Structure formats: structure tokens, C-alpha cells
């Protein structure tokens, strides 16, 4: 312990998951809390995101789940009086808040010391102008550029720099608002969005380095000025694509020792000159091969200052520095085994690198550079499977929601494993984009989410690699590797499958499924043949030191070589299958549940084995489980892991049977229930048959009918005629969806026969022969229930809580605001919910968790309504972390213990509804719409949110207002509201209009809504719709910054949706609250007007205990 070490420290989390800021900061924050505990420092954590491990009991010493704003943090600081503040572990959100608190004088006022990297270092790294000056001082080259604050300044600067240029706004996440521009029109537009996006209205305009190699270094420095690099990474995509949207390989593959160390030295110079204490990420651009991409000679930097022949080295530029733990550092931590966040936190607490033990070896120190003896590939996971209308072109603004990582001993095998890990509807390496240009190379010139497949197609089509390299900027080395894979593809197509060929294919990463496809066989047959030939994976350890020292971390990846390092272990063990990459619909909530499951297994004396493919997460921290397998989550990989664990892969059956736990890893894990059952692999918890019963529409209908539990009437149809007949019988509006997708994909609420015909025609064209489901749309109160069932022999069904949605049914449950405890349900309705939940749980035979969505239709207000079942999921839902936190019921632990055979009574828990706690909690969705151009933001049956926040307080209005505040959706206490309400919503909007009018808001509206407002007796400013012309029109009005809030509900008739679409996009880009559901808007306004602004600030346990 040094004199620098404080007694207590405040750690700011990164808030909700949004594009550019995902689960990696839960991992970083959790590591930081652990590090503080180890150092004997009291940790106080603030985060608005309940779906995080860091906000769990026992991680930090004090947990606040409160909005991340300066006034809130001020109150927390006042209350807790921390000695220190750790600014660099909560992503850009945490860093910006720390800077704001400093600038507001709050840190000084309360004597809070910034730990680790000083504020001046943060400023010099973050502020473009200061950064350029700092680089100039130490002779590190930066591209010709200018920092500007207005469009006029930008135009002047452009004259000196010349097109093409890159535009980067200061202090934004994931490059929001920036971009590469080639034309003057693009330039004017992007300059404006960039200035708008920057909180300090500052952008950098710099010479574009399109086509240069992008290389990153993760660097650490301690107070004794010891500097080390943890990892370097090379992007397959050349400069021009945000690194978060790039395919990344670690370590670099095409850099010579000279290149590697030239850039490493530059990175060390930079961290030293900035004075960073902790972790930092340096992005550099290295000149590519001149024969494939010409270098603009006039932009060459001076040569480096190392001895000859090094002085003839390649030119490079320094692009950017992140003076904090980042997404790249999470990736580097998982790629190397070196826990960057933990070490950075300890440095901030005053430790030197040589005083921090290396946990991996248990005997060396953190002061060393990891040596990798494998190749790591990261591929981003984009949301375009959900947002088909989104602009898929990748640039400087990040669009991916998550990422996968794969490890193997060759690039080819790691790449193929990463592709398998993406879980994008059967896109193996063999997938061909039928929509693409006939010239695949032309398609590959544009960076998109499917560029990798376009590169495969281009190589397959026989285009010379040199030409592909020239046109795409992808280094020929990567194209040669692709060609190696394609040669194998051809051999598998042409040659008989021999042991030698099979082994060669497996060593290149070909999955059994691909081999089956190419060799004209079936997966199972290939697997049998492969094992019969003794071709099986071995598992090697990620040990930070390339086997130079004995390591103790149980962190493994598969490869087809000789020596297996993951020997079967004795004792009871179970495999927890994780949830893979973060995507819309399957977010961090499932990683939370997976982590809790592993902890519960360990607490019960079982060995926890974890499998996952997502490098951002806590579940892939080697501390979380007894053994971690970093692998794709498909049948082949999971069966291999299970067989390795029980020893049967190596003909040794001493290991004992290892069962799988599938109910915590979202749909990824649950989808394995069928295949594993067929393969006679045991499953802990609900069986494959239970899952099938809940998911198979026919079986489930019969099941509910037998129990006498109602469901909205519905049927499956195959044609437009059948659909129209069915809808007539059921009655409009109807909810339509294809039968083959889950989670609300391509679902629509249809009001009339014309839209129904259009929907059915389109769906049939997309997937001929697949049935379409038509259900009665019940616009009632939607209610969500999570429950834990004891499993066979246990008649107990515990309901930790009932959540009521603010939006009526029809908005995807993941996008709805949920309130606990349900505020408006009648006692009789609650009784019915408990009864149905119990009957369904016991009837299905659920063991562990289940989630049921209900809709309640009341014929008369104040009298019990009818309760209908919408959907049952026999697995952990996304509300598990939220509900666990607000009720105090350890839901995952109870479920795991139930699976292991301990009844709920034995665990000390009753059957029925758990008594509600004296708090009100609201879960609000958070969207990343400002980053996804072309995507409509209105709420509907398709999920669109990327993350969630929680507002918790003693009453509903305060809790709701806090949730909105945390989500960036809070209604301003006064200001101007723009209303554009669809006809079908106008009746419901009247009371909302009255409230706004009476509260003195300035009202603006499109024509129909304006008439309604006038009719209600309020003044209104009419804003012309864009389609009728008008200057300024409604869009101009929003963009001019005069509007503080938008309420816009979409017309159900799809042809009229476009104007509303532009209104909603403008609001998203302007970052003002935009409500697309009257329900949400109404509640939000009411909460603001009824004292919601007078919220409390307290640690979560205080709310739960009724101490607030």
C-alpha cells in the first residue's frame, strides 16, 4: 500500500448498452471493483444499467442504480464523500462525467481526487487540437488536419487539406456524427452533423488515409514510468472503417519486427508524453504495400529516428488515443489473458506494475508483455438482420451492437470459428450474397456487414488477388488465407473424404456442417466418421506467456493438434452455455444470468464450466468459472467440449458425465436443447420437450386449452385468401408474423384487409411455403411474469414479481417500459396471474426459470379483466437482472439449485408471489437510433432497443422520471413540444394535450394535430409537413434546435409512414426525447408534472429496505 491509496473510491459505470459502448464496461467495472476490494479500498459504484454484474450485491461496497448525470453524481458525492474517483473504467460516459464533475468544481468542493490518469492528460488525449500539439512536440506524425468549430472554419480548412477527408467530432462515442467524405456536398452535411454531435461543438477535419493499414496498441503505464504494451491488433479492413466495425486480428500478421516495434515505440512515447497512469489505446495508420495501394507522396510523414536500416521504414501516422479502458482493451484482455482493467485500477490505486501479480501464472508480475502462441480474430455483430432498412455501409461511425472473438493456431481456423460464432442465420463461409453485384470484387469495395463474404466470392470467382487487394485495400496476406480456404473448399467438393483430407480441413477450421455440405454428407455422419478416424480437437490454454511458464488459468480454445491441456476433472460439473454476441433482442441480461449461474454452481459445490464467444463480457473472464472454453456456441463445438470434459473424446471415461445448462444463454443456448438431447447429452433444467411444447404453436395451443387458460384467438395460414378469411373470423386488428422466427422479428399489427394482403404476399415471397401466424391483437394491459419452478417432484412455483408495461400490448416487451410492482392490477387479476403461472409451470414441467407474457382486457374499468397468455419462454428472460435486483430474490441461484435437485422449500423459499418490496422500479429501454441512419425509430412489435436503464424510487412518478432521465428521454420541465399524432391515436392523445397545454408548454403540431389542439382550446404553431412543402417545414424546425420534445405516433397505414419517419429520424439525430407511443408520452409528462423531478438519491439496498 502506498500513501497514494485512498480509503474509498467512486466508480462511474457506463450506463445502458448502446452502439459503441457495450458489455465491455461491465467487465471493466467489475474488474475494477474486485481490484479495489483486493487493495482494501471501499468502492462506491454508480450505474443506471441494472443488467450488469457490477451493480450486483457483493461486487462493490455500495451500489447506486441512479441516472448518470452531473446533479445526481453531485448528490452521491455529497452523501458518500469518496476520497477518490476512478474516471477511466466507465467508457466515454464515465470519462465525460468525470471531466464535467471536475469542471463544475464539484470534485474540488468535496475534496475528491481523480485517481490514475490526471485531468490534463485526459484533455490532451481527448481534445483534438491539444492532442495534435502534443504529438507535434514529441515528433509523432499526425495526418494534416484542422480543428474547427463552425462550417465556415471548416470550409477554410478544407482548402489547405483537400478532399477526401475524415471528419471526427470531439468527445463522442463510437465516432458518432463523423464520417469519410469525398465530395463537397457530403462535406457540408457531415461537418454539420459532426458539430451537432460534439458536446463542445468541435470537429477534426483530417486528410483521409483510406486504404492504409489500421493498427492498434494497448498500452499501460504506472507512476514509476514503466510502460508496456499488452497487445497489438491489425484490422483486416483498411482505414476508413471504425475499428469497432472492423474485423480485427491479434497479434498483427503482416507487420515485420521493425514495423511492430516502430509502432510500439511510438505508442510508448505517446502514453509517456500524455502522462497517462493506467491503460490507454493508441490507433495508428501504417502505409500499405505500394504495389497494391498508392501512397499520396505529399502526405508522407518524416522517417522515424531509429538506426538504419530501420530509417527506411514505412511511414505511419498517429490517429487517435483513448486515455481509458476501451472496447479494444476488453478484446485485448480476452485475446491475451492479461486483465487490463484490473491492472489499470490497481495502478490508479497507486500500485506499480511490478507490484501487481500476474494472476495467470500465479508467480510472475503484471510488468511484462504477453506473448501469444495463437491467432485471435474478432468480427463485429451488426444489427442489420433486424434493421433491413438501415444503411449497411460502414464508415467512421460505429454500427455494430456486439462482437465475437475466436482463437485458433491459424488465421483461417480462427476466422471460420468467428464466423460460426456470429450466429447470423446460417451464414457460414460458404454463403453467397445473391443480392450483391454480379462483380463480387465491386461489391467488396464497399465496406458493409457482408464484405467478408463478398471477399470470399471475389476470390472464388477467380479475380486475381492482387486486383482484389488494389480495389479493396485488404492486404493480400488475408486474401491468400481466404484462397487457402477456398482451395480446401474445392478439394472437399471434388475429392473423396479421406482421413488426411478431413484432418487438413479441420485444421483450417472447417466445421463438420460445412464439410458435410461440400462433401455431400450430413453433419452427424461427418462427426461419426471424424471421431472414428481419431480426428478430434485438443484444447490449449491461453496463458499470456506462450507456455514459457506454468499457468493456472483454466482458459481454453480448441485446435486440431496433438497435445490436450484440458484434462477431465473429477467431481460434479456442469456446462453453462453463454449467449454469444450482444445483439438486439439478446443483450447483456443473458450474460448476467450466465455469470450468476456459474457462481451458483460453484456455491453449490459444483464445478462451473463456461462456454462463450463474446470477448466483451464478464462470463468470459477466467475468474468467473472453473473452466472457460472460448468457442462458437454451435452443436459441434458444444458437443466437443462436453466430450472433452467427460473424457470420451479421448477414449477415457473417468471424467463422469457433464450436463449442460441452457436456460441462461438466451435463444443461442436454448436452441441447443434439441440437438444435445438427440445426441443423448443430459440437460439440467427444463428438458428439450418442455421447450418444444412451449415453442411449438400447435402443441402449446392444445396444452393451454387443456388447462382452460385463454390465449388470443389465432391460426396459421398459407395464402392471402386463407389469411383474409381467418382475419375476418378473428376480427381486426390482427397481429401477423411468420412462424419461423422468434423474438418479434417481422411482426406487424394489421388494421385492414389491404395491409394484410400486402404483408402475406411479401412474407410468402421471402419464404415460400412457410405458414404465417395470425392472432387477434388485444390492445390491453401487458403484464410480464418471471417464475422459478422447482422441477420434477416440487410443486412450488415462486413468482418474484409481476411487472406491468406502460405501453399497451403491441410494443415488443423488450422495448416497453416495465414497472415493478405492477401499479394498476386488481387483486383478482393478480390472483389469476399467479394461478395461471403456477398451472403453466407445473403443467409444462419447467425446472428452473420461465417467463410469461400476459395481456389483460378489461371490459369495464375497475372490474377484473380477462387474462390471456401471449407467450411462454421456459428460460431466463431479459428481466431477470432487473427483477432480481429490485426484489432481492436471487432468481438464477434458486433456479440452478432447483435444477440440481434442491426444492424451493429446501432453499427456504415459498410458492406463490413474493411480497413486494417498498420501492417502485421502472425499467426503460434505450435505443441507439442516432447511430443507425435509415432506421425508423417508432415502437412496434419488433424490438429495436439495445439496452436498458432502471429508475428506482419510493413512488411511481419519481421512479419513472428517473428512468427517463437515465434513458435520455426525460420530459423537460418546460419548453416546446412538437406533436404529430396519427388519427387512430387522436382520441387517446386528448388528455395528454390538455396536460401539456395547461402546464404552459409551447405547442407545435402538424396540420391534423394542430386542429385537434385548437379544438381543445390551446394555442398552437402549425408546422408544415415536408411533403406539402413549406419553409421552414417540420423537419427544419426540429433541426434548428427549437424543439425540446417530439410526440409522434406512426400511421398504421404504411404508405403514410414516411413523413413521420423523417420527423422521428430528425429527433433521433437531434437527440431530443421522441415518444412514438401515446402511453409512454402520457406517463412521462404526468411524471414530470406530478413531482417526479423531486426524486431521491440513495443506494439500492436502502430503497429495498424502506429506508428512503
Amino acid at each position, binding site marked *: 500500500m502506498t500513501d497514494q491509496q485512498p480509503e474509498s473510491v467512486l466508480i462511474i459505470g457506463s450506463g445502458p448498452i448502446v452502439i459503441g459502448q457495450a458489455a465491455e464496461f461491465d467487465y471493466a467495472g467489475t474488474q475494477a471493483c474486485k481490484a479495489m476490494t483486493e487493495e482494501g479500498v471501499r468502492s462506491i459504484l454508480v450505474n443506471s444499467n441494472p443488467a450488469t454484474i457490477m451493480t450486483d450485491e457483493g461486487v462493490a461496497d455500495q451500489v447506486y442504480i441512479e441516472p448518470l448525470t452531473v446533479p445526481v453524481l453531485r448528490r452521491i458525492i455529497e452523501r458518500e464523500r469518496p476520497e477518490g474517483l476512478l474516471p477511466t473504467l466507465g467508457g466515454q460516459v464515465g470519462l465525460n462525467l468525470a471531466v464535467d464533475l471536475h469542471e463544475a468544481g464539484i470534485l474540488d468542493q468535496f475534496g475528491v481526487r481523480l485517481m490514475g490518469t490526471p485531468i490534463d492528460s485526459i484533455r490532451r488525449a481527448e481534445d483534438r487540437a491539444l492532442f495534435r500539439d502534443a504529438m507535434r512536440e514529441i515528433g509523432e506524425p499526425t495526418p494534416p488536419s484542422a480543428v474547427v468549430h463552425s462550417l465556415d472554419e471548416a470550409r477554410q480548412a478544407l482548402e489547405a487539406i483537400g478532399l477526401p477527408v475524415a471528419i471526427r467530432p470531439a468527445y463522442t462515442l463510437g465516432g458518432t456524427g463523423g464520417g469519410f467524405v469525398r465530395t463537397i456536398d457530403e462535406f457540408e452535411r457531415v461537418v454539420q452533423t459532426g458539430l451537432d454531435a460534439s458536446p463542445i461543438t468541435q470537429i477534426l477535419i483530417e486528410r483521409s488515409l483510406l486504404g492504409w493499414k489500421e493498427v492498434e496498441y494497448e498500452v499501460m503505464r504506472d507512476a*514509476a514510468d514503466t510502460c508496456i504494451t499488452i497487445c497489438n491488433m491489425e484490422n483486416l479492413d483498411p482505414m476508413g472503417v471504425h475499428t469497432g466495425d472492423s474485423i480485427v486480428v491479434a497479434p498483427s500478421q503482416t507487420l*515485420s519486427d521493425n514495423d511492430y*516495434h516502430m509502432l510500439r515505440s511510438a505508442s510508448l512515447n505517446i502514453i509517456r508524453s500524455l502522462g497517462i497512469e493506467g491503460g490507454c489505446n493508441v490507433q495508428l495508420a501504417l502505409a500499405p504495400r505500394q504495389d497494391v495501394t498508392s501512397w499520396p507522396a505529399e502526405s508522407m510523414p518524416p522517417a522515424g529516428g531509429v538506426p538504419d536500416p530501420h530509417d527506411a521504414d514505412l511511414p505511419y501516422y498517429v490517429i487517435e488515443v483513448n486515455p481509458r479502458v476501451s472496447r479494444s482493451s476488453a478484446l485485448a484482455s480476452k485475446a491475451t489473458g492479461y486483465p487490463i482493467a484490473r491492472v489499470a485500477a490497481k495502478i490508479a490505486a497507486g500500485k506499480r506494475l511490478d507490484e501487481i501479480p500476474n494472476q495467470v501464472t500465479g508467480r510472475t508480475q503484471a510488468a511484462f508483455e504477453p506473448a501469444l*502462441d495463437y491467432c485471435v480474430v474478432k468480427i463485429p455483430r451488426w444489427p442489420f438482420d433486424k434493421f433491413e432498412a438501415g444503411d449497411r455501409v460502414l464508415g467512421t461511425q460505429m454500427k455494430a451492437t456486439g462482437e465475437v472473438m475466436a482463437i485458433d493456431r491459424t488465421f483461417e481456423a480462427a476466422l471460420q470459428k468467428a464466423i460460426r460464432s456470429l450466429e447470423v442465420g446460417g451464414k457460414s463461409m460458404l454463403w453467397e450474397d445473391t443480392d450483391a453485384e454480379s462483380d463480387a470484387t465491386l461489391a467488396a469495395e464497399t465496406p458493409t456487414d457482408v464484405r467478408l463474404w463478398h471477399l470470399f466470392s471475389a476470390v472464388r470467382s477467380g479475380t486475381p488477388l492482387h486486383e482484389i487487394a488494389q480495389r479493396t485495400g485488404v*492486404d493480400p496476406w488475408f486474401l491468400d488465407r481466404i484462397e487457402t480456404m477456398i482451395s480446401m473448399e474445392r478439394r472437399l467438393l471434388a475429392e473423396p473424404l479421406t482421413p488426411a483430407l478431413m484432418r487438413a480441413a479441420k485444421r483450417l477450421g472447417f466445421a463438420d456442417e460445412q464439410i458435410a455440405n461440400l462433401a455431400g454428407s450430413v453433419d452427424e455422419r461427418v462427426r461419426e466418421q471424424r471421431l472414428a478416424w481419431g480426428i478430434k480437437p485438443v484444447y490449449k490454454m491461453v496463458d499470456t506467456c*506462450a*507456455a514459457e511458464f506454468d499457468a493456472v488459468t483454466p482458459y481454453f480454445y480448441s485446435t486440431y493438434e*496433438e497435445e490436450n491441456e484440458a484434462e477431465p476433472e473429477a467431481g460434479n460439473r456442469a456446462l453453462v452455455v453463454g449467449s454469444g454476441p450482444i445483439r438486439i433482442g439478446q443483450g447483456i441480461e443473458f450474460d448476467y444470468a450466465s455469470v450468476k449461474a456459474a457462481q451458483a454452481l460453484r456455491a453449490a459445490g459444483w464445478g462451473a464450466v463456461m462456454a462463450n464467444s463474446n470477448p466483451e463480457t464478464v462470463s468470459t473472464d477466467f475468474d468467473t468459472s472453473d473452466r472457460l472454453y472460448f468457442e462458437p456456441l454451435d452443436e459441434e463445438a458444444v458437443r466437443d467440449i462436453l466430450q472433452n470434459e467427460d473424457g470420451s473424446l479421448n477414449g477415457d471415461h473417468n471424467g463422469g458425465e457433464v450436463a449442460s445448462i441452457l436456460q441462461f444463454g438466451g435463444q443461442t443456448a436454448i436452441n441447443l436443447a434439441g440437438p444435445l438431447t438427440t445426441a443423448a447429452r443430459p440437460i439440467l433444467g427444463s428438458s428439450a420437450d418442455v421447450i418444444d411444447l412451449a415453442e411449438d404453436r400447435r402443441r402449446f395451443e392444445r396444452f393451454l386449452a387443456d388447462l382452460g387458460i385463454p390465449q388470443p384467438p389465432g391460426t396459421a395460414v398459407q395464402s392471402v385468401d386463407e389469411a383474409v378469411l381467418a382475419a375476418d373470423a378473428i376480427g381486426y386488428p390482427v397481429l401477423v408474423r411468420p412462424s419461423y422466427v422468434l423474438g418479434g422479428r417481422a411482426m406487424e399489427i394489421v388494421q385492414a384487409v389491404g395491409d394484410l394482403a400486402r404483408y402475406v404476399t411479401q412474407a410468402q415471397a421471402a419464404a415460400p411455403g412457410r405458414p404465417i401466424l395470425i392472432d387477434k391483437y388485444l390492445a390491453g394491459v401487458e403484464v410480464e411474469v418471471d417464475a422459478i419452478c422447482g422441477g420434477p417432484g416440487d410443486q412450488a412455483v415462486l413468482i418474484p414479481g409481476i411487472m406491468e408495461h406502460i405501453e399497451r400490448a403491441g410494443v415488443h416487451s423488450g422495448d416497453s417500459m416495465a414497472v415493478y410492482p405492477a401499479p394498476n392490477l386488481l387483486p383478482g387479476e393478480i390472483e389469476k396471474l399467479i394461478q395461471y403461472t403456477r398451472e403453466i409451470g407445473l403443467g409444462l414441467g419447467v425446472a428452473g426459470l420461465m417467463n410469461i407474457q400476459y395481456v389483460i382486457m378489461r371490459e369495464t374499468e375497475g372490474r377484473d379483466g380477462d387474462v390471456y397468455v401471449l407467450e411462454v419462454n421456459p428460460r431466463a428472460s431479459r428481466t431477470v437482472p432487473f427483477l432480481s435486483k429490485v426484489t432481492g430474490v436471487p432468481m438464477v441461484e434458486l433456479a440452478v439449485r432447483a435444477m440440481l435437485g434442491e426444492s424451493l422449500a429446501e432453499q427456504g423459499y415459498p410458492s406463490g408471489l413474493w411480497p413486494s418490496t417498498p420501492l417502485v422500479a421502472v425499467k426503460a429501454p434505450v435505443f441507439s437510433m442516432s447511430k443507425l441512419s435509415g432506421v425508423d425509430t417508432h415502437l412496434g412489435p419488433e424490438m429495436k432497443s439495445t439496452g436498458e436503464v432502471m429508475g428506482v424510487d419510493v413512488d411511481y412518478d419519481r421512479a419513472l422520471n428517473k428512468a427517463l432521465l437515465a434513458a435520455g428521454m426525460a420530459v423537460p420541465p418546460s419548453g416546446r413540444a412538437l406533436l404529430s399524432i396519427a388519427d387512430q391515436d387522436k382520441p387517446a392523445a386528448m388528455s395528454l394535450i390538455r396536460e401539456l397545454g395547461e402546464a404552459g408548454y409551447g405547442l407545435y403540431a402538424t396540420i391534423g394535430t394542430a386542429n385537434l389542439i385548437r379544438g381543445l382550446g390551446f394555442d398552437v404553431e402549425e408546422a408544415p409537413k415536408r411533403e406539402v412543402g413549406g419553409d421552414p417545414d417540420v423537419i427544419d424546425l426540429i433541426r434548428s434546435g427549437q424543439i425540446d420534445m417530439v410526440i409522434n405516433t406512426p400511421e398504421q397505414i404504411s404508405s403514410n409512414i414516411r413523413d413521420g419517419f423523417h420527423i422521428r429520424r430528425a429527433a433521433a439525430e437531434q437527440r431530443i426525447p421522441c415518444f412514438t407511443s401515446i402511453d409512454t408520452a402520457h406517463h412521462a409528462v404526468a411524471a414530470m408534472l406530478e413531482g417526479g423531478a423531486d426524486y431521491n438519491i440513495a443506494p439500492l439496498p436502502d430503497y429495498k429496505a424502506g429506508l428512503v
Partner: protein
Amino acid sequence: MNRTSGRDDWPEHHEAALVLADGAVFRGTGIGAAADTWGEVVFNTSMTGYQEMLTDPSYAGQILVLTYPLIGNYGIDPPIDESRQVQVRGLVVRAECDTPSHPRGGMRLHDYLAAADIPGIAGVDTRAITRRIRHDGVMLGVIVPIQDVEAAQQRLAELPAYDSQDFISVGVEQPYRWSDGRPQPIANPSPEPGPHIVVLDEGLKYNILRHLHTRGCQVTAMPPSSSADDILAVKPHGVLLSPGPGDPQLRDLQVAAAKALIGKLPVMGICMGHQVLGRAFGADTFKLKFGHRGGNHPVLETATGRVAITAQNHGYAVDPDALAADVDVTHINLHDSTVEGLAHRAEPVFSIQYHAEASPGPLDNGHLFDRFLNLIADTSPHGSARGRVR
């Protein structure tokens, strides 16, 4: 004693095996020369720098296993050779890249090895080999065509131990000077001003000479058998004892020269040169179980508390027990606490076990050459008012 000659019946991608002295056999594909070979099997954990390692004379007599699996990616660029030839006896890799891509490295690794008449093997489980060596220590091994595995096991028992071999011939036979980025005959006029440094070439890497030359020195490399008188005869301002292969216990001649030079002029030792100086200071040396070979070894400078990341390639270390009382251990390896640097308290003499010249490896330690030149500046007519760097 040397490699057997090339064999005509060996096709380019023949099946081959690495056979270790403990009997372990690793099957793979032959690369480089169609020949078999033997040597002490050692591993290096650097992720880049295969060409620099292959030409590092300290690998003489050794078969080099690279733990990074993908080798040859950026090809071969002849000007960055670290000595006049490939020095390893054999190369062992997981995957050899035959389609390199780099602005400067057009040549394939396979062709480079073949031209140097050095065989290698690819496709083997290099991690398994590394774990075996880590566990049991370095041992002899052979690379042979697959059909010769049985015979190889017999042959391994008869091969001489690495430690008993004299590698003195790895150094130069005739003195040369370093100029224009290459060795030049000593007869040429040497126009360069600046301090004159003699580097005793026991198997040096050219980058040591480049570092000195870049700093404005006249550089003369002399044969390892040079006596102190031979060295003093060319009137140097300082002497650098270079790295080199083999057991420092066999370097009595150099130890004697070092003893005679200490007190007469500044001396710097690197790697073998450090071990020679250690012996000159009265210490013993010993063999490490599997050596230090890589680019990531942390070394603590005891005076400052700062940790340097260093390039290392050595199989022996200095035992500090019997060190003279006026010599300090200045640097310590954080992994195993072995001696990484020595300095005399009174005389301008210091040494480091690691490679300040890098190539391959981190460029963090070039300042040690500045330290050497500062010592020279302090004690010679080239000196200025600059203080001694200690």
C-alpha cells in the same frame, strides 16, 4: 559433427519429424533445405523477428522452435540479416507462410532456408514441444525424414552435449570495420570522427554495430581470440564484449582479456559479453533450465524501480554469489530473479544480460549505448563536461 548433406530423394513437401532426446516424436512437413540436422532444441516466444533470430549467431548449434504459430507472413528482407548467414541449425514452426506480404519482404522463408542449406519442419504442435522443454529443460533433437525416425533415436544417444561444444568459430576471423551499413575491410581509410569502439565479436548481431555507428562511433569488430594487447593496439576509446553462443565456461581467453581491460578503458558487455565480465569479476555462471528467449522479459532496474521490457536470448546466467565486492547487480529479471545487469562501482565497466540492440525485440533499451558513450566521454579526449551516467 555438422549437418549431413542434402539428399536427392527428399521432395519439397516431404514428411519429416522432430525427434527429441527423450524419445518424443513430432511429425510434420519438411521446409527449407532437404537435409537433416541436429542441435539443442530451444524455444523463443517473440511474435515477430524470425529473420533476425535465424541470423543471430547466438543460435549456433541450436534448433529453434518459434512459439508464435504463423511464421513467414512478411517474408524475408535480406538487408535486415543480423550476421553473414543463417545461424540456427534448424527451424521448427506450426505453420510456414508461403505467400508472404510486405512492402519489403518479397522472399519466401522456405526459399531463404533452402538457399542457406538449413532444414526446418512445419505443421508440428510447437506448443507441446515448448511445454516439454519448459518442464524437462532444453535437450538435443534432430529433424529427419519420417522414415529415419528410428535411426534418429539411436543417433541422439551418440551426439555430443551442447555445453561441451566450442562455438568460438562463430565470431569473425579477421577484424573489420562497420561502415555504410555493412562490414568493410579494415585496410580502407576510416574517415569517421568520434570515439573508436572495438567490439569483440564472439557472435555479434550487426545491430550492435549499427547502434554504435548511428551514434557517431568508429566501429571495429575484432576476432574473439583477440587478447587485451591486440585490442589496445588499435587504440580504442571503449570495448564492447558482444553476445555469442555456447557455455561461458569455455571462454577463458575472453575472460582473461576482459580482466586486463578493466581499469584501462570503458567496457560494456552484452549477453555472452556480460557473462564474460561476470566471470572476470569473480562470479560463476550456470546453465538455465530452458533459458530466456523472447522479446517480453521484464527487467527491474534496481536504482530507479523502473521495469524495462527486453529482448533476450541466453541459456546461461551469472551466479552473483562470488561477485567482487565492488561490483553491483544493477538489473534483475522479474520472472526468476536472475542477474540481468552488473556495474563496477569505481571503473567505467557495466554489462547487461539482455539485448540493448533489439532486432528483434523492443527498442526500449538503446539508451544503454548512450550510457556507454557517456562513460567514454567522461574518460577520453572525446569527452565533454557531461557527467557519468550511473
